[in-house]
C-alpha cells in the first residue's frame, strides 16, 4: 500500500507531464532544462519522448502516442497493437495536434454583455454560472446538461455532478447516434447497443450504407479488420451514392435511395430457409417475401447481381451483414436496421462477428428525438440553466426546427468547447476547454476498455478541463469535492490498481477488463412485430440529394482544422470549401463542368455549391458532405430519431457563377498509362540495358513497398506526412492555382465502370533519378543509401528538377511558409527549415532513418528490419506501406520486392524507382 504522495510521485515519473500540467498559464512557462530531471519529466534538448494517450477526435477512442520535443507535442501516431485501432491513426487523429495549436482556439472564458460575447475571467464567468444555478434552484427550475458522448471518469463525474448542481444530464447528443441500430437491437434482443463488429473474419461481407472505412463507429479499427479479411473474401457494399467504403468494396451495388428494405427483405427470405440459425416460425410467417423481380425493380440492382449476392451469403462459412449510416438515416431506417439484425442472427453472425455483449457503449447516447424534446421544454420555459458541452446541436438539428432561437428559453446558456461554433455563438457564457493533450482524463470508449489521457503540454490558453469546471461549480455551490479533477482521477486509479498494474496501464495507455454478458436471445414476438411493420413501397422517382458523412471532418466537428482541408477528399480530391458531387450524366444534362456553381433548393432551404463531377455516381443522385453545409436541410425519422440524409426532390439550377475550384486531380482516369497496371504486365524481369555501370549502395538501400489492395485512400499517410515533415499548409487560393505542397498524395483513378483504384504517390527515390542530373548545384543527389536527397540550403530554386520529375512529387515554396501562432509550435526540430524559393520533397523521413542508424551505432548493432518506420507507414490504418533495407536479404521488403506481382510506376522510363507497388502478398504487420 502506498500513500498518496508516493503514488503521485510514481505516476509523475512514469507519465511525465505532471510537471508541465502543474504550470499554470500566465506564469513564466520556461521549461526546466536540467541534467538531474529525467527526460520524461523535464526537457532534455534534442531528445524525444513518446507519451501513450488516446485520440478524441471522434468517439472511437483509438490509441495515440504523442512525441514530445522540448516539452511540446510535435507528432501523433498510432499505438501498435491497440485494441481499438490496431495501430493506425486516421487523418482526423493526425489533425488532433492542429486542434491543440489552432490559432482560433478559445483562449479564455467569454460572457455575453449587451448582446455580444466579451472576454472575461474564469472567476467572472463561473460566478455568473453559479449565481444562475442558485437562482434556478430557488425558482425550482431544473437545468439541463447536454453533452457529446461522454464515457469513463468524466461520465461518472457528470452523473454525480448534474443532480448536485440541479441539472438533468440529457441523453448524449451525437449526430452519428446509430439510433436505428440501437433501437432495432433493443427491440429484437433487448440490447439497445451498437454491436462490436469483427470485420476480419467474414468470408462474405455485405455492408448496406455502413461506411466502415470512413465514420462508422470505429473506422480505423474496422478498416484494419476489413483489409485483413481471409483470402478470397468477397465484400459487397450497397448504397445510393458513392462513398469511399463503396469504392473499396469488391463490388459496389448502387441502390435506389430508400430501397434498402427491399434488398434486405429479399435477402432475409432468400437465406432464412437454409440458414444455420433458423428463425422462429412466427418470424418466418411475418417475413416479407418480395420477388426477385420486384426487388430488382425497386432497388435498381440487376437480378443476376442479387442472385450472386444471395447465393454467396447462403453458402458462406462466416457471413456478415451490416446496415447503418446512410441506410438507416432514412424513413424506414428501423426496418433496415431490424432486417439487418435478423440477417445477422439467422446467418449466425450475432454472437460471433456481431458482439452485442461487448458493445460499443452507445447505450446512453440519445437521438434527435431527445433534442426535439429539449427544444419543446425550452419553448415552454421549463429549462433553467442550459449547459452544452462538446456538442453542436444548433448545427446538426434540422434547420426547420430553428433550435438556435429556442435556446433563449433557458435562464442562462453555458457552452463548453474549444473552437467557436454555431452553438457556442448562442451561449451567454463560453467556457474554453483544455485540449485532451493538456489534461488528465480516462475514457471508456467501449465496454471493457479503459483508456488513459495524459497531459503532454501545459495549456496554451487560459483553459480548463471539463471535470475541473464541474468540481468548481459544485464547490461554489457549497459542496466539498476533490481539490482537482486530476486528484479525483488519481484517487480512482489508486483504488483500482496496484503499482504494477498502474505501470502497465500508464505505459500502454489502455487496459482491458473482462466483460461478460449473457448471450442475447431473439424476441420472436418483437421480431414478428417489427417485420410486420416493414413497408416495402417503391422508392420515389426523381432526384435525390444525399448528405454523406465525411472522412475528413466526421460529422463536422473537425471542419475548422485547416490540415483536414489541405488533405484532399479521397474520391473527388477537393480540398477547400464545399462542393456538390454530380454524376457525369447529370452534369451533361445540367450543363455544368467542375467548378460551376449550382443552387440547391429543398423546400425553403437553399445553398449555392460548386459542382464536382464524380465518376461512378448514379445519375439522379447528388452528394453533399453534410459537414460542409451551414445548416442541416433534412428532417428526422420519428421512429428512431435519426436524421434523414437521403432527401428526395432537390431543386438544382445553375447560378451562372463558377471558376477554378480547389481540387488536385488533373484527370480522374489513368488515360491508359498503366500507373496501376491491369492486369499486371509491366514487371520487367530482365535487367535494363544501360550505358552506365550499376552504382553501389554499400550499407543500406532504403526501399518501400506499397500494397495497393490494402490502400483504402483514407489520407492518413498524407496527413501524417504533413505533421512529421512540417509540410507547408498553403490554403484555398494556392490550391486553386495548383500549388499544394503535399509530399505524399493518394491518386484516385477511375475506370470506365466507375470503380476506383487508389495509388499513393510519393518521391520514388529513383536510382536513375531524372531530377538529379538537371540540378545545376547538386541540391538533388543520390546518397549512398539509395535516397534521392534534397539539400535545402543548396537549392537555388530553378524548379528544373520538378519539371523533369515524371511523378511530379517535388514541391516548390512559392512563398515563405507562414504558420500563425501558436501553430508555429507544431514543428519538427529534426528537419531543416525551408524558406521561399526552395524545392522540397519526401526523403523517406530521412530524419527517422538517421535517428535509427545513430541508435543502432550507439548500441553497436545493425539497424533491425522494421526499426525505421516513416510517418506515412506508421499511420496507415491498413498497414499498406512497408519500409526497409533491400540490402538486408531477410527483410520483409526484400521479399515483397521480389514478389511476382510487384511493379514500379513508369518503370519503362528507366528511372529505377525505390518504391515498389504490389497487390496483396505481404500480410500486414506492424
Amino acid at each position, binding site marked *: 500500500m502506498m500513500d498518496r504522495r508516493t503514488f503521485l510521485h510514481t505516476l509523475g515519473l512514469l507519465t511525465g507531464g505532471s510537471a508541465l500540467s502543474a504550470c499554470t498559464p500566465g506564469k513564466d512557462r520556461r521549461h526546466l532544462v536540467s541534467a538531474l530531471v529525467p527526460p520524461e519529466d523535464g526537457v532534455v534538448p534534442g531528445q524525444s519522448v513518446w507519451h501513450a494517450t488516446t485520440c478524441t477526435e471522434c468517439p472511437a477512442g483509438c490509441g495515440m502516442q504523442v512525441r514530445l520535443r522540448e516539452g511540446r507535442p510535435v507528432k501523433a501516431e498510432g499505438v501498435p497493437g491497440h485494441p481499438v485501432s490496431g495501430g493506425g491513426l486516421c487523418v482526423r487523429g493526425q489533425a488532433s495536434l492542429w486542434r491543440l495549436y489552432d490559432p482560433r482556439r478559445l483562449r479564455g472564458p467569454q460572457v455575453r454583455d449587451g448582446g455580444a460575447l466579451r472576454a472575461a475571467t474564469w472567476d467572472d464567468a463561473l460566478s455568473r454560472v453559479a449565481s444562475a444555478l442558485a437562482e434556478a434552484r430557488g425558482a425550482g427550475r431544473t437545468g439541463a446538461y447536454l453533452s457529446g458522448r461522454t464515457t469513463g471518469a468524466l461520465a461518472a463525474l457528470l452523473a454525480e455532478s448534474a443532480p448536485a448542481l440541479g441539472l438533468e444530464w440529457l441523453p448524449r447528443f451525437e449526430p452519428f447516434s446509430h439510433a436505428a441500430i440501437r433501437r432495432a437491437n433493443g427491440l429484437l434482443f433487448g440490447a439497445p447497443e451498437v454491436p462490436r463488429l469483427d470485420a476480419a473474419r467474414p468470408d462474405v461481407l455485405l455492408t448496406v450504407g455502413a461506411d466502415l472505412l470512413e465514420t462508422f463507429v470505429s473506422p480505423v479499427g474496422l478498416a484494419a479488420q476489413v483489409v485483413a479479411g481471409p483470402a478470397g473474401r468477397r465484400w459487397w457494399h450497397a448504397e445510393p451514392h458513392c462513398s469511399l467504403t463503396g469504392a473499396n468494396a469488391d463490388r459496389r451495388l448502387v441502390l435506389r435511395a430508400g430501397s434498402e428494405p427491399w434488398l434486405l427483405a429479399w435477402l432475409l427470405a432468400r437465406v432464412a430457409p437454409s440458414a444455420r440459425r433458423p428463425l422462429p416460425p412466427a418470424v418466418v410467417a411475418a417475413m416479407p417475401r418480395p420477388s426477385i423481380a420486384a426487388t430488382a425493380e425497386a432497388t435498381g440492382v440487376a437480378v443476376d447481381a442479387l442472385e450472386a449476392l444471395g447465393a454467396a451469403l447462403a453458402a458462406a462459412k462466416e457471413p456478415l451483414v451490416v446496415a447503418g449510416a446512410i441506410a438507416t438515416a432514412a424513413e424506414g431506417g428501423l426496418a433496415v436496421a431490424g432486417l439487418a439484425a435478423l440477417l445477422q442472427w439467422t446467418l449466425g453472425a450475432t454472437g460471433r462477428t456481431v458482439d452485442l455483449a461487448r458493445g460499443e457503449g452507445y447505450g446512453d447516447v440519445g437521438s434527435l428525438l431527445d433534442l426535439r424534446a429539449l427544444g419543446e421544454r425550452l419553448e415552454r420555459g421549463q429549462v433553467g440553466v442550459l449547459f452544452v458541452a462538446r456538442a453542436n446541436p444548433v448545427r446538426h438539428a434540422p434547420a426547420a426546427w430553428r433550435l438556435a432561437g429556442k435556446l433563449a428559453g433557458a435562464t442562462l446558456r453555458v457552452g463548453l468547447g474549444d473552437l467557436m461554433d454555431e452553438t457556442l455563438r448562442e451561449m451567454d457564457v463560453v467556457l474554453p476547454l483544455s485540449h485532451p493533450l493538456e489534461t488528465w482524463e480516462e475514457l471508456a470508449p467501449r465496454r471493457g476498455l479503459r483508456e488513459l489521457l495524459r497531459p503532454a503540454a501545459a495549456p496554451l490558453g487560459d483553459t480548463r478541463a471539463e471535470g475541473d469546471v464541474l468540481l468548481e461549480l459544485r464547490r461554489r455551490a457549497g459542496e466539498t469535492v476533490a481539490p482537482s479533477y486530476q486528484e479525483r482521477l488519481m484517487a480512482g486509479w489508486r483504488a483500482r490498481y496496484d503499482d504494477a498494474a498502474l505501470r502497465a496501464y500508464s505505459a500502454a495507455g489502455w487496459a482491458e477488463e473482462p466483460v461478460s454478458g449473457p448471450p442475447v436471445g431473439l424476441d420472436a414476438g418483437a421480431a414478428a412485430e417489427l417485420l410486420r411493420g416493414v413497408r416495402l413501397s417503391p422508392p420515389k422517382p426523381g432526384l435525390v440529394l444525399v448528405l454523406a458523412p465525411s472522412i475528413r471532418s466526421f460529422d463536422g466537428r473537425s471542419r475548422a482544422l485547416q490540415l483536414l482541408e489541405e488533405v484532399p477528399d479521397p474520391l473527388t480530391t477537393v480540398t477547400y470549401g464545399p462542393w456538390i458531387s454530380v454524376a457525369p450524366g447529370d452534369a451533361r444534362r445540367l450543363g455544368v463542368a467542375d467548378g460551376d456553381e449550382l443552387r440547391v433548393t429543398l423546400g425553403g432551404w437553399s445553398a449555392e455549391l460548386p459542382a464536382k463531377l464524380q465518376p461512378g455516381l448514379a445519375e439522379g443522385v447528388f452528394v453533399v458532405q453534410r459537414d460542409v453545409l451551414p445548416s442541416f436541410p433534412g428532417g428526422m425519422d420519428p421512429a428512431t430519431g435519426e436524421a434523414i440524409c437521403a432527401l428526395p426532390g432537390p431543386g438544382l439550377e445553375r447560378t451562372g457563377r463558377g471558376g477554378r475550384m480547389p481540387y488536385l486531380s*488533373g484527370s480522374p482516369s489513368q488515360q491508359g*498509362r498503366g500507373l496501376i497496371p491491369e492486369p499486371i504486365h509491366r514487371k520487367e524481369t530482365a535487367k535494363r540495358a544501360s550505358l552506365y555501370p550499376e552504382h553501389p549502395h554499400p550499407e543500406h538501400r532504403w526501399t518501400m513497398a506499397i500494397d495497393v489492395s490494402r490502400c483504402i485512400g483514407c489520407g492518413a499517410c498524407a496527413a501524417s506526412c504533413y505533421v512529421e515533415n512540417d509540410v507547408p499548409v498553403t490554403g484555398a487560393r494556392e490550391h486553386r492555382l495548383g500549388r499544394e505542397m503535399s509530399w505524399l498524395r493518394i491518386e484516385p483513378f477511375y475506370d470506365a465502370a466507375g470503380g476506383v483504384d487508389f495509388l499513393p504517390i510519393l518521391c520514388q527515390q529513383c536510382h536513375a533519378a531524372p531530377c538529379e542530373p538537371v540540378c545545376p548545384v547538386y541540391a538533388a543527389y543520390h546518397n549512398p543509401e539509395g535516397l534521392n536527397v534534397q539539400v535545402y540550403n543548396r537549392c537555388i530554386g530553378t524548379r528544373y528538377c520538378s519539371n523533369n520529375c515524371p511523378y511530379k512529387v517535388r514541391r516548390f515554396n*512559392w*512563398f515563405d511558409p507562414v504558420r500563425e501562432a501558436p501553430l508555429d509550435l507544431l514543428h519538427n526540430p529534426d528537419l531543416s527549415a525551408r524558406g521561399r524559393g526552395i524545392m522540397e520533397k519526401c526523403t523517406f523521413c530521412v530524419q527517422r532513418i538517421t535517428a535509427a542508424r545513430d541508435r543502432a551505432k550507439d548500441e553497436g548493432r545493425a539497424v533491425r528490419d522494421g526499426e525505421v518506420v516513416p510517418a506515412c507507414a506508421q499511420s496507415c490504418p491498413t498497414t499498406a506501406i512497408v519500409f526497409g533495407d533491400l540490402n538486408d536479404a531477410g527483410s520483409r521488403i526484400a521479399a515483397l520486392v521480389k514478389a511476382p506481382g510487384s511493379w514500379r510506376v513508369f518503370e519503362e*522510363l528507366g528511372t529505377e524507382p525505390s518504391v515498389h507497388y504490389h497487390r496483396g502478398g505481404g500480410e500486414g504487420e506492424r
Partner: protein
Amino acid sequence: MTGTRVGSEVERDVLGAIRRPGWRWLLGLAVSGLLAVLLHVLWGALIVRGLGLTGLNNPVGWAVLITNFVFWVGIAHSGTLISAVLFLFRARFRTSFNRSAEAMTVFAILVAGMFPLIHLGRVWVFYFLLPYPIERLIWPNFRSPLPWDVFAVTTYLIVSVVFFYVGMIPDLALARRHLPGLRGRIYAVLSLGWQGTGEQWRHYARLYLFLAAFATPLVASVHSIVSWDFAVSIVPGWHTTIFAPYFVAGAILSGTAMVLTLSIPMRRWLGLEAHMPIDHYEGIAKILLFTSLLVGYTYVVEQGLSLYGPSPFERDQYAFRAFGPYRGLFWLMVVCNAILPLTLFLRRARRSLPWLFVLGILVNVGMWTERFVLIVASLSHDFDPYAWGTYSPTRYEIGITAGSFGLFFLFFLLFSRLLPVIAITESKQALADRAGEEGTP
C-alpha cells in the same frame, strides 16, 4: 564616284544621325525607360515576396520567364549570323545591317541573361551556379544543362561584345573626327587610338576573320545548348533530338524578323534610305523565308514523329498542343511562323518594306508563342495524369515581359544615337568594291 572621296556620304549621314535627337526618339526613350523601370520594380517584388506572384504552379514550373529567355536568346542569333556567317560567305547585303544586328545581339543577350536570374527561387544565391572555390568544396553540377547555359550565354555575350566592338573601332575613330569636345575625346578613347595604318589593318583583318570563325559555331551551339535545357529532360514534348536544329532555325527566323522590325523604322527616321537599299532587305527576306521553311518542316516532323512513335506520352502531348487549352496559341504559332512567311516567295512581298515590317512583328509574335506553347503545354500535360494542370500568367509576368522589351528598346534607342548604326568603313569598302567592279566590266 571617281574623283570624290569614297563613301563620304555614308560617313556624313551615319555620323550626322548621332547629333540630332528628335521628338520620336525622346518619346521612345521615355516609354522604354519607364518599362525598364517597371521590369526592375516587379522583379524586386518577386524577390521580396516570392515567385508565388507569378502564375507558375506545380506541374508548370517554367513558363513566361523562361519563354522570354529563349525568345531573347533567339533574337540574339541573327546578329551573329549576319555579322559572322555572312561575313565568311561574303554576302554583300550584310553591310546595311551588321552593325545594328550586332548591337541587337548584345542587347538581346543582356536582356535574355536577366531571365534565368529572375526565375530563380533564390536569386540572392545565384553565384552557386558559378564555378568558384568555396570552403564547402562544392562545385556546380556540370552535367546539368543550366551551367551549360551559364557558360554558353556568358561566352556568347563576351564574344558578341568583342565582335561588336572590334567591328566598330575604325568607325569610332571616324566619329572622333566628326565630333568636337568631350564626346570626341570619348570616341577617341573608345577607338584605342586607331590610325588605320597598314600594319593595324593587316592584324585587324586577321582578328576579324578569327572572330567571325569563332562566332560562327556559336550561332549553332548557343541555341542548341538552350534547346538542350529541354531536350536533355525526359518531359514528353521536350525530349527529342530534333530540338537543336529546330531551335537554331527558329532563333535565326526570329532574329532576322527582329532585324526587319528594328531597321525599317530606323532607316526611315535616321534618313539612311540611301545606304540601306531594298536589295539588301530582299537578302534578309530570303533568309527569313528559308528559316521559316526549316521551322515549318520541324513542326511537321515533330507532330509526325509523335504520331508514328511508340510513346503514348508523346502522342498525347502533341494532341494536347493542337487541341487542348493552348490550341489557339498553337495555331497562331503555325500561321505566323510557317504560313505567313511563305508570301516571301513573291518578289513583290520581299521588296515591300511595310509588309516586311509587319511580317517581322508577326513572326516574332509567332516565335514567342512557339516557345510558350512548347514550354507550358509540355509541362502541363506530362506523365502522371493526376498531376496535370494548366497555367496562365499573372500581371507580374506580363509586366516583366513588357519591361524586357522596354529595356531592349532603351538599349537600342541609345545605341541609335550614340554609336554609328551602319558600318561606315565596311560600307566604304563595299562601295569601292562595287565601283571597282563597275569600272572593269
